[in-house]
């Protein structure tokens, strides 16, 4: 009896809850606004990085929004993996939460092919000659183009190079050549390695296509290996790929830092900054990080090109760039922000606030012709520019390959495959399996895709 009388109240409670949800839904939808032209809110998805969180975001508030009072910029900051997930979800479902997205040369051509990005060349740059797209470094501009047009513009760019301790080299009576070979690097590492005190060389071991695979891929390329041959057949167990991987893994296990399978850029920057590495092979942007975070170590640091074996150069190429997703609102305002953050004047703005050495490197020729920058970044500006200029993502390997990309393969499947192989290599570095086993598993992972599937994505 009691529950019979109670029922209307239960229904009432459910009704109340439903009403609340409905009210919530209505107020939620009314909060979204949209307008065209060069005003409005611009939501920017960016990767968490000192050049962005420490410079771009504060400068946007203090400078850009003052210059363009009608534009309100909101930043969504993510780690690299979260950024990729958030952006892909957003552009592929056309949620249009982001007016500007930060992407790299891996995503740009793939997104452009899917029709997810604005053609910046024809839609904006053509009408704005002062932007001077011709000033962008050619390999970077090429990596961000699809069918000859730019679909993203670079915020900063990087290749890879070797950092070494000039004091330790002098003490051991060694000389680092400007263009070392991997064999030389190995012999230096053997001489300089003091277990427990200083590692002969610090290298990336953390699993990930942007982590250990970025470094290893450059070794594979210069040893004459490749991910796929021209028929899109995986080549991960080829003699060259295996020799390169054995070399890299042995170099870490013999003369590298302890626990290397957990280390990527940040951990290695800390180790190098604290004097625990005689050499360090990593991104050219680390020169800026060392100069700003560990100034005392910067004066002891020498710089050399990415080591080679059979090819003339071997550095990787990456750039964090800004693109505008198609179909989003406030496109005019979005481009205003993109062009401001990637312009020549942005460089001088950063310099006036944080000094020339802190300027985002690797995007514009004009920066490297600037006498003030040349003076402030004398030690590493030249080699950074030459390293980037020496890369060719269209011809990354010794033998011809059907894919684009130095330290990645520009196909959608690589996002998964690169991580799977990275995990195998991290296992080999940690010693839980042999290199041969790791590559056998990796080859099987790659062979799970048919050549036709892979070719369709290139």
């Amino acid at each position, binding site marked *: 009896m*009691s*529950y019979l009388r*109670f*029922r209307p*109240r*239960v229904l009432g*409670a459910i009704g109340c*809850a439903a009403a*609340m*949800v409905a009210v*919530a*839904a209505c*107020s*939620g*939808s009314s*909060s*979204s606004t949209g307008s065209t032209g060069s005003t409005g809110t611009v*939501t920017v*998805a960016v*990767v*968490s*990085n*000192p050049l962005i*969180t*420490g410079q771009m*975001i*504060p400068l946007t508030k203090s400078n850009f929004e003052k210059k363009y009072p009608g534009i309100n910029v*909101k*930043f*969504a*900051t*993510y*780690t*690299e993996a*979260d950024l990729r997930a*958030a952006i892909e*979800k*957003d552009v592929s*479902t056309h*949620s249009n*939460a*982001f007016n500007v997205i930060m992407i790299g040369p891996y995503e740009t051509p793939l997104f452009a092919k899917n029709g997810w990005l604005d053609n910046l060349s024809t839609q904006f740059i053509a009408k704005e000659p002062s932007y001077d797209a011709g000033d962008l470094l050619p390999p970077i501009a090429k990596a961000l183009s699809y069918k000859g047009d730019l679909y993203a513009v670079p915020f900063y760019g990087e290749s890879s190079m070797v950092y070494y301790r000039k004091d330790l080299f002098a003490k051991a009576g060694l000389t680092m050549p400007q263009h070392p070979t991997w064999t030389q690097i190995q012999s230096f590492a053997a001489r300089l390695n003091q277990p427990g005190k200083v590692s002969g060389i610090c290298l990336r071991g953390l699993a990930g296509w*942007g982590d250990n695979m970025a470094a290893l891929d450059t070794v594979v390329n210069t040893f004459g290996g490749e991910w796929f041959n021209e028929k899109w057949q995986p080549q991960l167990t080829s003699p060259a790929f295996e020799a390169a991987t054995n070399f890299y893994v042995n170099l870490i296990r013999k003369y590298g830092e302890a626990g290397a399978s957990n280390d990527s*850029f*940040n951990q290695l*920057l*800390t180790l190098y*900054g*604290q004097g625990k590495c005689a050499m360090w092979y990593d*991104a050219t*942007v*680390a020169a800026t*990080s060392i100069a700003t*975070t*560990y100034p005392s170590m910067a004066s002891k640091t020498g710089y050399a090109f990415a080591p080679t074996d059979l090819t003339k150069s071997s550095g990787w190429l990456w750039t964090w760039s800004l693109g505008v997703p198609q179909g989003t609102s406030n496109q005019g305002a979005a481009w205003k922000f993109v062009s401001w953050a990637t312009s020549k004047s942005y460089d001088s703005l950063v310099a006036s606030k944080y000094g020339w050495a802190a300027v985002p490197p690797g995007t514009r020729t004009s920066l490297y012709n600037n006498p003030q920058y040349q003076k402030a970044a004398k030690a590493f500006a030249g080699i950074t520019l030459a390293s980037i200029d020496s890369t060719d993502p269209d011809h990354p390997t010794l033998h011809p390959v059907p894919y684009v990309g130095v330290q990645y393969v520009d196909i959608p499947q690589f996002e998964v495959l690169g991580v799977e192989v990275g995990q195998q290599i991290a296992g080999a570095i940690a010693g839980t399996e042999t290199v041969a086993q790791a590559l056998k598993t990796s080859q099987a992972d790659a062979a799970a895709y048919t050549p036709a599937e892979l070719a369709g994505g290139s």
Partner: protein
Amino acid sequence: MTALPLRPGHSGRPRPQRLREMSGRAGWGIVAWVVAIAFFLPVLWMVITAFKPESAAETWPPQFIFKPTLSEFRLVFSGMGPFLTHSVVATVGSTILVVLLSVPAAYALSVHPVKHWRDGLFFFISTKMLPIVAAIGPLYVIALHLHLLDSIWLLIILYTAMNLPLAIWMIRSFMLEVPRELLEAARLDGAGRIREITGVILPIISPGLVSTALICVIFAWNELFLALNLTVTNAATMPMYLISSVPQEGLYIAHLSAAATIASVPVILVGWIAQRSLVRGLSMGAIK
């Protein structure tokens, strides 16, 4: 001389027993301290690290002597404003809704059980059985079509749904503790259902309500998965600020420690204020 042999017999039995008791208590005390310190040390280390400059934050051996700096806190304060606001709104909003909805629901499942109340009870808890990651795809699509993506209302609704089953179960167990005689007396005095809840039940279970609300606050405050997947900037919460403090190319341990320290302050504060009710509330169901 004759008295001597008597002495051990006189106090012999109680002494070892008392000693055993005391050493037993001391032993447990030591265990409790060790466990407490083991739990507290990482938190203390986080707070210490927050005051370090970035280059001294991650060193081996760890640095104990350093020049403290507030620069990381300043950086966190300058960036976390909107995240903090969103977290507070989503947490407080959802907790109020949870309490408002779970009190009548718990009443209908305990004091005056509705028909099939067992099924209802099981249904509520069964909504917690599906891992949220399995539902995120449909949730995203529904939110997209309702234009609720990146809206604080979405988080309030989802956090309410997330905490409701637990709250109903907890409050129900507290309501079962309310003496039947009191309810009957109230009814004899002519109190209706509403009066019965507000006048008799709520005052008795208020410590339980406080502890339930606190648990809901903690869960909503710390939630990351839904916020990360369904919001961007207009509803991004504190846990999202924490993960955005981890850069790909740069040092971050000191900054992350400062951000995490600030993020944990509100929950600690609320817990400290509610401490007395919390102890009473959480032990309510224990005395049968």
